[in-house]
């Protein structure tokens, strides 16, 4: 599902955000990515989700070569993955329902299907009652759950989550991780970046460690 080889990401300065990263994640795996702030977790996720381009190396995700992907193919690739961004990236002028429905709308799903599927996902993340609210009128945790719902609504083959429980209380965090477990059990590959070492220990999943832009550990 994910195959990275000799990935470098260098920003002007030069700042080496990623250095010679090699990584392979199989279909259906649940993998944690841990590391201190500034280690390169978010940068790595940006490369994997075609949010940004790597400086060199090769990236294959969900059957797409992201180093040579054409502008025409980018939307099709992004429809096959689900991404939970650290800053949520919700549209403030659209309701929670509309935000979550967007991946289905751009895919061209029928309105009835959209209604049914969005309601189902909002129910799963406990936001059904807030469906008609605007993002600015709900809490940070609820915004995070909205972002999770949007990443899951189109049942992607790969879910990339950057600190998906960062703003949630421990109980809700466990609920969300249970939800991601269920998603993984249904065949979706899940790749989660987190600071929560206790949760990583409890879940007993493959864990990659990143430090100074390099993968320094791979615990299975």
């Amino acid at each position, binding site marked *: 599902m994910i195959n990275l080889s000799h990935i470098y990401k260098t920003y002007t300065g030069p700042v080496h955000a990623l250095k010679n990263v090699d990584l392979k994640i199989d279909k259906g795996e649940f993998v944690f990515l841990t590391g201190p702030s500034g280690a390169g977790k978010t940068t790595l996720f*940006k490369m994997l*989700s075609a*949010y*940004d*381009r790597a400086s060199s190396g090769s990236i294959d995700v969900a059957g797409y070569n992201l180093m040579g992907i054409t*502008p025409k193919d*980018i*939307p*099709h*690739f*992004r*429809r096959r993955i689900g*991404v939970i*961004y650290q800053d949520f*990236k*919700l*549209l*403030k*002028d*659209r309701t929670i329902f509309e935000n979550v429905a*967007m*991946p289905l709308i*751009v*895919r061209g799903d029928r309105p009835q299907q959209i209604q049914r599927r969005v309601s189902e996902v909002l129910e799963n993340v406990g936001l059904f009652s807030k469906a008609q609210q605007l993002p600015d009128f709900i809490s940070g945790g609820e915004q995070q759950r909205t972002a999770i719902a*949007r990443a899951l609504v189109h049942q992607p083959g790969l879910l990339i989550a950057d600190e998906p429980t960062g703003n949630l209380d421990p109980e809700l965090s466990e609920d969300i991780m249970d939800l991601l477990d269920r998603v993984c059990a249904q065949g979706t590959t899940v790749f989660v970046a987190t600071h929560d070492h206790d949760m990583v220990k409890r879940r007993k999943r493959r864990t990659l460690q990143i430090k100074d832009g390099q993968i320094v550990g791979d615990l299975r």
Partner: protein
Amino acid sequence: MINHVIKTWKHHASLQLATLVVLIAGFTVITGVLTVSNNLYRILTLWGESMQMSVYLSETATIENTSAIEKFLGDSGKVDKVRLVTKDEALNQFRDQMASYAPDILKDKDLLRFIPASFQFGLNKNISIQDQLKVMQEITASVSGMAGVEEVSYGQDWVKSYGAIVNTLAWMGAAFVLVILLSAAFVMSNSIHSSIEQRREEIEVLELIGATRAHIRLPYIFEGALLGGTSSVLALGFSYGLFSATKNYLSGQIAFLQLAGHIEFIQPGFILMVVGFAIGIGALASYLCVRRINDGWAASQSLIEGH
């Protein structure tokens, strides 16, 4: 797409309103310039229509000569309302005009003997004002050589000055309209550009969830076209109000110039052209702006540009 426009207005009302005001101002200037230049041209044309040419016949002109001249003028297709003024008619006219100014001159029989018969005519209305001088010179050259013609007169100096003024004004008008159009297009496209730039995040998010170019761009292009069209219609209404007020002023305060009857608002063809231009510039400005952002990597552009 209508939903997109409604949402945009709902959530970015002040930005949209500011853009609309700038566009209305731009189109009001364009409409105003078109109205003024159009009416200036009409007034100049009216002056041109009142221009008369005279072909004075010699003392020795025969009936055949006169007929030949009349036939030549009639067949040329360049003149209108050819009228033969006989010596008696010319004399009577001269008497009528001069009686109160110089009664003694009417007693001078030798002088009156020199008043010739002539053909009086105007130019065909289909001849543009820029071509009038050239046509008059051509007629003069052709008729002067004919038997029985003493002299051809059309107020040569005045017509030359008039032609120069008309040509200068036509060129200046065209250049001015072009400059105004380009400036208005620049201001309007910048205004739309700024409006879209402030909603850059929306384009980024749409890209990140897998929206295609068409899905992202079409609503913005439609919005730009609608903004352009609406602003042009409002500007036309506003300009018509200004025009009516000006016309009322002309017919009331300076009625002696008799201009009010001759000026009119821009023609329906021009109105359609203004609205079409507005829709086009709105759509084009939106398209160019969205295309620049929506290259598939809008979010990473933001990282680089520090948005």
